């Protein structure tokens, strides 16, 4: 029976939709290399920090909680990642931002896009623009972030979403 239970656990990993989990794992490996391990923590964002960031960026957080990843290479922590959502026109866009130990973005990826329009924000060409940015960067669409014709709402939404995380990571690293 124990074997059966274990088998079922294993199956449930493969049978149930795990696309977000798989995509996150792949994004982390693409960014930090294959020889990494990570811990996931669902963090409740401090209320006053949350308010400050929302005011600064002009966008609300998707929820009070966020997925915080600590990435290590078996010896020490090599970076962090945050998984969050923003709303596009009507559906959530799930994205991940990966940071170095100074809170500077090293990679960002759209993990799941659900809208019929604006899917071009998923392209590596667009998401790679955030590399090197941190809490002090501008994040202005049309200036340091290029727009995508036909994806205006998603572009603005994700850009603000990523900016929020650069501010949040400073607090989480403390």
């Amino acid at each position, binding site marked *: *029976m*124990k074997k*059966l*239970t274990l088998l*079922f*656990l294993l199956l*449930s*990993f493969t049978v*149930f*939709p*795990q696309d*977000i*989990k798989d995509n*996150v794992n792949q994004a982390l490996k693409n960014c930090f290399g294959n020889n990494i391990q990570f811990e996931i923590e669902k963090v409740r964002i401090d209320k006053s920090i949350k308010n400050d960031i929302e005011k600064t960026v002009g966008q609300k957080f*998707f929820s009070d909680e966020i997925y915080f990843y600590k990435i290590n290479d078996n010896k020490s922590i090599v970076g962090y990642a945050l*998984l969050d*959502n923003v709303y596009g*026109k*009507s*559906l*959530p866009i*799930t994205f991940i931002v990966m940071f170095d130990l100074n809170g500077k973005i090293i990679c960002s990826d759209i993990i799941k*896009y*659900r*809208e*019929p*329009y604006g*899917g*071009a924000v*998923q*392209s590596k*060409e*667009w998401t790679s*623009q955030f590399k090197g940015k941190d809490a002090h960067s501008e994040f*202005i*669409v*049309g*200036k340091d972030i*290029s*727009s*995508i*014709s*036909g994806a*205006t709402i998603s572009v*603005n939404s994700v850009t603000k979403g990523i900016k929020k995380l650069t501010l949040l990571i400073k607090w989480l690293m403390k």
Partner: protein
Amino acid sequence: MKNLFLFLVTIFLSKSLFAQEFDFFEPKATIGGYGELHYNNEKIGNAASKSIWDFHRFVLFFGYSWSEKWSFKSEVELEHNFVKNGQGELELEQAYVNYHHSDLFGFNVGIILPSIGLINEFHEPPLFFGTERPVYHNLIIPTTWFGSGASIYGNYNGFDYRLTLFETLNSDKFSLSQGIRPGRMKGYKTDASRFLYSVKLDYLNFPGLKVGGSFSFNNAKGDSTNIDVTISEFHAKYDANNIIAVFEFGNINYNSGELKASRGYYFDLGYNVASIFDLSTKIIPFIRYSDINTAAETLSGGDNEKLYHFTEWMIGLNIKPIEQVVFKIDYSEQTRKLDDRKSKFINFGVGYMF
């Protein structure tokens, strides 16, 4: 018995835990909308100038997502603020069920917008230069062009495709002065015996650039005419590094009747000068040049091909305090090819989207 209980608990837990983890979707209704108030002043040739206020468009978007894959989206529009005796319009511009399977494939069916040109599907005021939509999008590719239909869409490696099966145009209504524009049926009891077939392909993997085109065919029919129409158009837009540049070219061929071809193009070039002063408000002066001829080729030729041919220069300013709000002002001069008649337009307005 204990083992069976453990097994059932495991099934329950694994189902709920693994399915719910990272499940960010919730069924949800969404509202949105856009609108634009215009001041239009025109002076056609030697006629006296006239000016009007026009709350040109008031549009409400309503959508509902049942699941990540199935959703409904709609747009209702009130044009010119008032409907009476054929003036003003109340329109159901979009109302469709959408199935989004994956990036590669999805479809929608209902009242839809054919994917022809840059503006038809993305027509909110903050998204284009000029108080009014470009004249190209009035006379060559008429916007907003909506009607009954279905489309399949997807994205692969930066290529965005959409195949559309759309209601027919009414060929009786085609005109030398407006091309296919009056032939749109707007989803109103359209002849179901034929379709407009359209294919669009865009490339989006160069940051800031969208480049693509579409080709459409329709054996259009009215009560007294039956005309094969082909619509080919090319479009490109660049929006990055404070530069916005647009180019569109469209050609429509008709296989019978006086009208043989409609043709036109325009380009825009704008620069966000506020970036020099590090302002967050976008201040974008722009220029536009258009060349439009709804009767570029006609059966009888001669002056018929010059009467509706004009070029237009426009200079203007778009000011965006935030991305969703725009103040616009522009001045343009049109020159008719037939007799060099000049028409002058001054427009300003405010637009929003949410």
